[in-house]
């Protein structure tokens, strides 16, 4: 810590913004840079691609079913003759949107509850019992209840697709924050006993500042891991839900659903499994690298090394 201060004094550079520092460090992480480029690339394909490749992924051309790759259908067609490339792009929009928002929601909840429970002793028992309760609840009946109670309301308020989207994000978010909360709480408990916390408490730092300036930055690495795993988890959970008929309408492609539907055709048309599988894995992988880079860049001990 001290040598960084000494260095910057010696160089006598003008004060730099924290975010610039952060970017400098992030840039040196090759994997992270590559991951981010790839992730942006996927986003671009998925959201801009449909304007270039204009075939409708829901259009059934029954005569062209079960085709291999060709000029008309670069990734082939499915069992009803729908174009796989268009379906992959349309599915990517949904899967990425669900994955990212649901992950963000579950991280937010998990971090909030974890930090609260770890930092405020009085809340610990209550919040952790709440976590136990959520861990113990059987997912499937819970989903059925939530969907029964809210689907029609959301459908009339936001229309069928947005309504289901909100429902999905909410459902996945509130059923997957528990692990993050447990881990964050554990880390907070340990950090709370460190000398720098003691020091900063002794100069009268208020709790809110304490949490945002000192505690949160130090629990970032487990949060980043949770985030990476969270996206994958959300994409997969969404596919399981669609399969059970609890998710999006069946003609609405998502990556998880494409993968599930094509598993039966694994032996005849292996390429059909390959595309959604690759899309999910590579996206998750790139998010993971971005997460690694973010963590390194946000950690002042590594920065400048």
């Amino acid at each position, binding site marked *: 810590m001290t040598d960084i201060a000494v260095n910057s004094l010696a160089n006598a550079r003008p004060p730099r913004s924290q975010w610039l520092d952060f970017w400098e460090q992030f840039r040196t992480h090759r994997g992270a840079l590559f991951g981010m480029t790839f992730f942006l690339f996927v986003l671009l394909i998925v959201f801009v691609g449909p304007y270039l490749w204009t075939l409708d992924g829901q259009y059934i051309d029954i005569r062209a079913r079960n085709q291999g790759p060709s000029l008309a259908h670069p990734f082939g067609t499915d069992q009803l003759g729908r174009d796989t490339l268009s379906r992959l792009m349309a599915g990517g929009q949904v899967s990425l949107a669900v994955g990212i928002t649901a992950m963000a929601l579950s991280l937010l909840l998990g971090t909030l509850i974890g930090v609260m429970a770890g930092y405020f002793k009085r809340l610990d028992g209550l919040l952790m019992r709440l976590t136990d309760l959520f861990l113990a609840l059987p997912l499937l009946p819970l989903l059925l209840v939530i969907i029964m109670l809210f689907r029609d309301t959301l459908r009339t308020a936001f229309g069928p697709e947005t309504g289901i989207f909100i429902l999905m994000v909410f459902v996945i978010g509130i059923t997957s924050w528990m692990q993050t909360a447990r881990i964050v709480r554990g880390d907070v408990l340990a950090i709370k006993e460190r000398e720098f916390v003691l020091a900063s408490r002794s100069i009268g730092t208020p709790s809110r500042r304490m949490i945002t300036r000192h505690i949160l930055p130090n629990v970032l690495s487990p949060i980043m891991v949770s985030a990476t795993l969270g996206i994958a988890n959300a994409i997969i959970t969404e596919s399981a839900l669609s399969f059970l008929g609890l998710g999006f309408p069946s003609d609405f492609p998502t990556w998880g659903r494409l993968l599930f539907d094509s*598993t039966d055709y694994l*032996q005849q048309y292996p390429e059909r499994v390959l595309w959604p599988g690759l899309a999910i894995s590579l996206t998750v992988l790139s998010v993971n690298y971005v997460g690694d880079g973010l963590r390194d860049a946000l950690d002042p*001990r590594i920065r400048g090394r």
Partner: protein
Amino acid sequence: MFNYTIRRLFLAIPTLFFISLIIFLLLDLAPSDPTANLPLTIPPEVREKIRQSLGLGEPIHIRYLLWCKQFFINEPLNIMEQWFGWDIAGDRLRVLSWQTRSPVVDLIVQRTPQTLWVVGMSYVVGVLIALPIGIISAYRQYSWFDQVGTFISMIGFSVPTFFTGVLMIVVFSVWLGWFPSIYDTTHQVTDWASFWQQIRQMVMPVAVLALFNAAQISRFMRASMLDNLNQDYVRTARAKGLGERTVVLVHVLRNSLIPVVTVIALGVPQVFGGAIITEQVFKVNGLGQLLIISIQGGDLPTVQTLTFIFAFLIVLFNLIADVLYGVLDPRIRYD
């Protein structure tokens, strides 16, 4: 610490009752029907009679109290009778499953061995793989080993088991014919040959699940190691002239294990919860499969009992994780 543990244990009792009540209300609210899976040729009047005979006509609080009595009083008495050969008053109603009309606890006892064999073994294997991978990946951050490890663990986590399972069956059962595609739950290990047979039928489900578990745990291990490798005490240890091996495997590892132990302990109840999809793919028919068919069949007593046992394990292992925390990190004091 001891006081803390005792206090937590006492606190667990009302917590568990509360959880059981919430689960019961949730299941009651959920739209399910024990006669849903019957053929449509069975007329509505008969269905209504079946529901009545299952006790669905009773009001909800009566049904909840009945379940509590059956589960917390009758079942333990029954177990004691079996263990000690006592005979207290004979005719007690046990928790009966609606689908099979047999005691739920017997079903669970019947299902536990295969779940522990397969899911438990995969957890152990997963942890054993994950820890070294996490440690080496962190120590040699960004080396080829780290990159490959990251790649494989991400694949393991992001490709769902319904796909890897089927892929393995197609490759190793259909094409190569090495392993059976269907798990034989009646198989008994009596000699080396049957032991070998047991290993063969366990290989694929264990591998699929272990990959998934290892992916998750190795990520946490790596992150935690990285955090600690840059701490001041590591520098101090190195400065003292300690060997690299001691620094990493004693100083860093012990501190890094703290959060990982939580993750591992929290995962143990999942073992008992079974692995729904993997059990389905390989026909292991363990606790996970029991839970899912009970949910699908609207078999409320089974779901309630299974979920409650699951909740009990979660509370227990959370407590264990917290106690371990205090033991591993003396700075954390709960009192």
